[in-house]
């Protein structure tokens, strides 16, 4: 089957179109101009960002919110290196993404040409796979493969580096109808014997626990998971990445586990006799001290990625496969059970130790802001976060009831993720309320992207919990570093001597309300607790992007906290 000749640039655009891409994020430069020349004539919406990191986080937020593949197009050299953080973020959290980068012309590669970087070398460790296109005839196949690899198995970002001469060259090679990759065949169905073994273990267990990660959301298995938990009365704890996989309003929901997990979740892990991991990878922030993690439990692990099995915690019953069909098969084999005693024990932990803060004070507390946003949005928003204290409070005080509604950089912990991710999420879900919960430290890392929300009429609501500090750094310094607040204070007063801030300054920069206005958005500020509900309502009712700066009490810490390296039962609840 012959096709008419296409240029490499046309292959790229045709490949995107064939993959069903409707929205692209990116920023041009010399080495990618041929592709942009074709995009100019395309029907796909192009979102012009202000920094390539923003493009990757937008594509990421778009992918997490919609379940589709996020796409970005950037130039060579600095364009590609700026994209690295976003690729690494997506790679750690298993987010499907395709990133097309321009590259200097093939004959100039390796010559230290203008805007040349070894993009393939640099991104090898932060992508699921990457391609340097050496022959335009390979490009149709590579475009098809890239989308296949990004979306299947454990999803992840795939980068395609296209030299400028390849974009200009032409090919008659058609797009392949089938994919034949002998080195890449992810396991989909779980092994029936292993599933039977797991079902028998569940049926035998007196104190089983489901430990659910982002894989349950990526694998679209929330329905099956809920059915399983309810049929067999198994309590559910989720990781940060798993929030929304199971309705947190259910009595079976123990909320998040781990370093900042709930007492109920961490106690249940420590006392269960069977722990079933569903698409969660036993991350160090979850397990605490490995030798004391779930010490009484038989451990089972359902995961599409065989390399996560027994990586840190030894697994007794591994099931390699896609969570959805595995849970479906499991559901048929698992018996109904009441487990009254176990549920009563768990309920007691829940009742006596909910996530809490001082609700009586007149001061504006960050936890209260999040709880109010939860109540006023009726728990129905898509929430993005940055990284730090506010991220943990967003996990504690907003209850997630459906998948793809909590978008956060869990693995890499990328400050600066929240605002562009919210823009991407809103671009993919125009009819939803999209809220970015951020901190004054994080939000400044990609604030420039706010103009993009304004330009594209994406009415995101950004709540900045301004505690005038890098709060989580401050908390660690308070708890583990002798209260020496080295480089964690963002207000100008009481900065350490080595920072050389002239005496007498006590202001805070920048002015976030003016920042919002300068970017064409609405800026609001809350300093008093009483102003909060009205301001949140006003923000939600405003059909434009809004930034709400909340001046919160700086000294609040995130509790409970399991100190690094300690066992999950050693939770700290206050500084006293």
């Amino acid at each position, binding site marked *: 089957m012959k096709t008419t000749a296409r240029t490499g640039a046309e292959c790229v655009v045709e490949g995107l179109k064939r993959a069903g891409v409707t929205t692209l994020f990116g920023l041009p430069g010399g080495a990618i101009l041929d592709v942009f020349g074709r995009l100019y004539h395309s029907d796909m919406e192009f979102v012009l960002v202000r920094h390539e990191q923003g493009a990757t986080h937008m594509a990421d937020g778009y992918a997490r919110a919609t379940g589709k593949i996020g796409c970005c197009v950037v130039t060579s050299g600095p364009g590609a290196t700026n994209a690295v953080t976003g690729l690494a973020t997506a790679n750690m959290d298993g987010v499907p993404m395709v990133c097309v980068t321009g590259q200097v012309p093939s004959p100039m590669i390796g010559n230290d040409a203008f805007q040349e970087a070894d993009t393939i070398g640099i991104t090898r460790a932060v992508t699921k796979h990457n391609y340097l296109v050496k022959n335009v005839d390979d490009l149709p196949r590579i475009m098809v493969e890239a989308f296949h690899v990004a979306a299947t198995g454990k999803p992840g970002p795939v980068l395609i580096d296209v030299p400028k001469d390849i974009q200009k060259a032409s090919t008659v090679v058609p797009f392949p109808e089938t994919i034949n*990759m*002998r080195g890449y065949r992810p396991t989909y169905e779980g092994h029936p014997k292993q599933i039977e073994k797991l079902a028998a273990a569940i049926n035998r267990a007196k104190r089983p626990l489901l430990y659910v990660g982002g894989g349950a959301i990526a694998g679209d298995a929330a329905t099956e998971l809920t059915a399983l938990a309810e049929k067999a009365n198994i309590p559910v704890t989720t990781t940060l990445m798993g929030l929304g996989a199971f309705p947190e309003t259910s009595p079976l929901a123990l909320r998040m586990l781990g370093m900042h997990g709930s007492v109920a979740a961490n106690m249940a892990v420590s006392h269960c006799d069977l722990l079933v991991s569903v698409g969660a990878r036993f991350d160090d922030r979850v397990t605490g001290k490995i030798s004391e993690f779930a010490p009484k439990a038989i451990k089972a692990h359902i995961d599409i990625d065989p*390399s996560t099995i027994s990586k840190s915690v030894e697994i007794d019953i591994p099931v390699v496969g896609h969570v959805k069909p595995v849970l479906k098969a499991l559901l048929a084999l698992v018996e109904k059970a009441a487990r009254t005693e176990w549920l009563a024990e768990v309920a007691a932990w829940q009742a006596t130790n909910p996530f809490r803060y001082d609700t009586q004070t007149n001061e504006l507390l960050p936890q209260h802001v999040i709880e109010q946003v939860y109540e006023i949005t009726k728990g129905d928003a898509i929430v993005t976060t940055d990284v730090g204290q506010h991220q943990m409070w967003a996990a504690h005080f907003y209850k997630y009831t459906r998948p793809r509604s909590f978008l956060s950089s869990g693995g890499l912990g990328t400050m600066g993720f929240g605002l562009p991710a919210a823009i991407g999420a809103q671009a993919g879900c125009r009819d939803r309320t999209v809220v970015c919960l951020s901190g004054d430290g994080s939000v400044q890392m990609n604030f420039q992207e706010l103009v993009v929300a304004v330009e594209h009429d994406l009415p995101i609501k950004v709540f900045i919990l301004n505690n005038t500090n890098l709060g989580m750094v401050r908390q660690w310094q308070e708890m583990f570093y002798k209260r020496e607040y080295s480089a964690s204070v963002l207000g100008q007063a009481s900065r350490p001597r080595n920072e050389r801030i002239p005496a007498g300054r006590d202001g805070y920069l920048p002015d976030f309300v003016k920042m919002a206005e300068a970017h064409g958005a609405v800026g609001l500020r809350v300093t008093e607790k009483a102003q909060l509900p009205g301001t949140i309502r006003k923000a939600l009712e405003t059909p434009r992007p809004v930034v709400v700066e909340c001046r919160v009490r700086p000294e609040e810490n995130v509790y409970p906290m399991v100190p690094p390296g300690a066992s999950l039962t050693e939770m700290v609840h206050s500084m006293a």
Partner: protein
Amino acid sequence: MKHVITALVENQPGVLARIVGLISGRGFNIKSLNVAPTQDPSVSRLTMTVPGDDRVLEQVTKQLNKLVDVIKVADLTQRRCLGRELMLVEVACTADKRTEAIALADLFDARVVSVQSKSLTIQLADAEERLADFLEVVKPLGILDVSRSGVIAVARGAE
């Protein structure tokens, strides 16, 4: 413990960098590494020896399997397999010592591939331990230079 890992990989540029990057990125030292095309020119066989405990090496093979360009990986350490290594040794050897050196080479089924006025170059292809033994034996003559290929290995019989 030393592990012998072999993999069938796509014969494409960048594949070796991917594999080496994956292993070095996890802090392992590759003791030897060998790669060349198989009977199918689009596929290369790679053999490497990596020191490390079983658990760590299981993780390495799983990670290698995840690479899109890696078709198949096997840890041959616990399996019936054949491992061979090629070595070229230049030993100091003036005319009066030649007979002695050649006799030693004969004992190991090694071949003298080049004769110089003050040295001999000997080629030996055998199991890794035999190479070590040979080096020990010729040491008194004076070893001027050694070049070893690293182990190549195949599993024995059908799997």
